[in-house]
């Protein structure tokens, strides 16, 4: 066990992967010599030389070359500095990486890992604030995860790079410099998928992922003090998604809230609700979704705070949910 921040845990995973998988490469804008704008790739260039390098500001070239290198047996780990920037080169993820295995009938594969980070942070503009996981989750052929703890930041990345398919690891820059936590860095490669019961409870099931997990856990503690016993399920793996655990929990508590930072409409919360509804899970009240309302993100923190869900809003809405009656 090592005491690591979330960012340090990513870094530790990268070091381990470079060590244990000689076919890994780490590259992207400023990730080599400077060690990353968030310091997350620090030390790799020094230790692994040419296997870690800086690139031009060319997301299509970064992602496309990763697809090509992966086809030829490398395991590139490339960084897209902000998820927002993936939109200049989404073709390489959706039309290229996701098709390699399927179209070739498994004769070619594309085991690349795309590390990115997303979400709002105080003062960030509309072009540096989006949560875009739903876009990737609509694309068959990709794997997607969103760690929220140092241990998961470590484990999920290790699993992603060992995976033989393209994986997006969506980190969050507001977590990089958080509290240090003990992280097991010498464990085996964890299996892909699965939900984490971050808090057991019996009154309501709250499903969440990414940085929002921390808001939800804070809310759950506050709710407990008010007599509402929330079960918090974090689903750090969104593809594959652990539908069974969510259905089991929602069936047991009879109430479901899904919380994500992404805009509500078309967010992955809709998919979670649709799966639970489609499974015919009997609920005591209509399921709710808590997310950023359907609006762009303003830079002024005072405006953004009115939009991005926080613990207070989760408390309020979940409380209302637990009081609501059956349809």
């Amino acid at each position: 066990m090592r005491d690591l921040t979330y960012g340090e845990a990513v870094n530790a995973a990268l070091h381990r992967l470079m060590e244990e998988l000689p076919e890994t490469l780490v590259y992207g804008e400023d990730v080599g010599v400077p060690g990353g704008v968030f310091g997350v790739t620090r030390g790799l260039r020094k230790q692994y030389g040419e296997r870690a390098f800086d690139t031009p500001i060319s997301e299509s070239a970064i992602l496309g070359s990763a697809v090509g290198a992966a086809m030829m047996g490398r395991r590139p780990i490339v960084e897209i500095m902000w998820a927002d920037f993936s939109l200049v080169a989404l073709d390489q993820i959706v039309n290229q990486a996701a098709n390699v295995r399927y179209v070739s009938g498994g004769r070619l594969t594309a085991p690349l890992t795309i590390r990115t980070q997303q979400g709002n942070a105080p003062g960030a503009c509309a072009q540096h604030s989006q949560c875009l996981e739903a876009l990737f989750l609509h694309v068959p052929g990709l794997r997607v995860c969103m760690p929220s703890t140092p241990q998961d930041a470590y484990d999920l990345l290790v699993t992603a790079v060992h995976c033989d398919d393209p994986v997006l690891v969506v980190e969050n820059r507001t977590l990089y410099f958080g509290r240090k936590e003990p992280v097991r860095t010498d464990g085996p490669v964890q299996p892909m998928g699965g939900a984490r019961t971050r808090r057991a409870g019996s009154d309501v099931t709250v499903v969440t992922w990414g940085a929002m997990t921390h808001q939800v856990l804070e809310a759950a503690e506050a709710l407990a003090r008010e007599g509402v016993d929330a079960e918090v399920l974090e689903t750090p793996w969104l593809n594959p998604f652990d539908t069974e655990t969510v259905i089991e929990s929602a069936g047991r508590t009879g109430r479901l809230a899904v919380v994500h930072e992404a805009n509500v409409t078309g967010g992955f919360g809709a998919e979670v609700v649709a799966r639970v509804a489609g499974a015919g899970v009997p609920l005591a009240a209509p399921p709710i979704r808590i997310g950023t309302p359907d609006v762009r993100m303003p830079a002024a923190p005072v405006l953004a705070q009115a939009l991005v869900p926080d613990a207070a809003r989760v408390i309020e809405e979940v409380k209302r949910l637990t009081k609501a009656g059956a349809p």
Partner: protein
Amino acid sequence: MSERRLADLLAMWRIRAFEEKVRDLRAEGPIVGSVHLCIGQEAIPVGACGELEPHDALFATYRGHGWALARGVPARPLFAELMGRASGVNGGRGGSAYFTAADHGFHGENSIVGAGAPIACGAALAGRFDGSHRVAVSVFGDGAMNQGAVHEAMNFAAAFSLPVVFVCENNRYSELTPIADMVRAPRLADRAAAYGIPGHRIDGNDAEAVRFHVRDALEVAREGGGPTLLECMTERLVGHYIGDAETYRRPGELERVRRREPIARLREGLLADGVPAADLDAVERRARAEMAAAAEAALAEPPADPATAREHLYA
């Protein structure tokens, strides 16, 4: 010398016969959907592919049948692919415009204009680490030169001296639009200077010229000198896709083009060199017979099995 030219002729006839067969099969029904033939452009793959090593990687476009054949992919599983047979190189999943045959060093067609260029860079990059030092060949059209991904790829390859040969097949049209109307500086090879790499405009209807320049570019690449851009001037004798009404052709254009086309030209040259017409006719007949047989064999093979349609999405 005339032996190699005869071999070129055969290779080009194979491609043309393949494409003409495809055209028939598309008209008759066994092939369905959008098909882009390379009739008239055969000298480029034929000239280029002979110079490649088995471990080199080749990335083509939807207009890639000729490249696959020149790279050594057998015609039968190609026909089968286009006809959606289980025995196709991708079991019918790729189709005419998006198949791969990595076993033969053919790393795929691509139906997104320009998208193959960055992917080729990655294949070259991989070769730096896996000890193969493979060269990657990236093929695209004149129109693709205006796509951002191609620009990024050329700079990426140049900055890192990656062993990539960028082969631009300039057939003067991007679909239905003349490239001359879409650029201000019509010599696309000159764009290489922007990246600090060599660029040459060459006669793409002459397999020998293509061979010479590709060999040179490969040498530079293998010696660590980085990428080269080759603009191969050519013409397609057919529409952009099967069904294209070709309303954009100017009067007399196709007639002029036919005088330059690679097969007729090479035939003329060989005749002038004293090769008997009968020998040349035999080459054509042989190619046509091979392709007819391959198509017929593929036609008899069972279609892809719908029950397998969901397989191979993930590992």
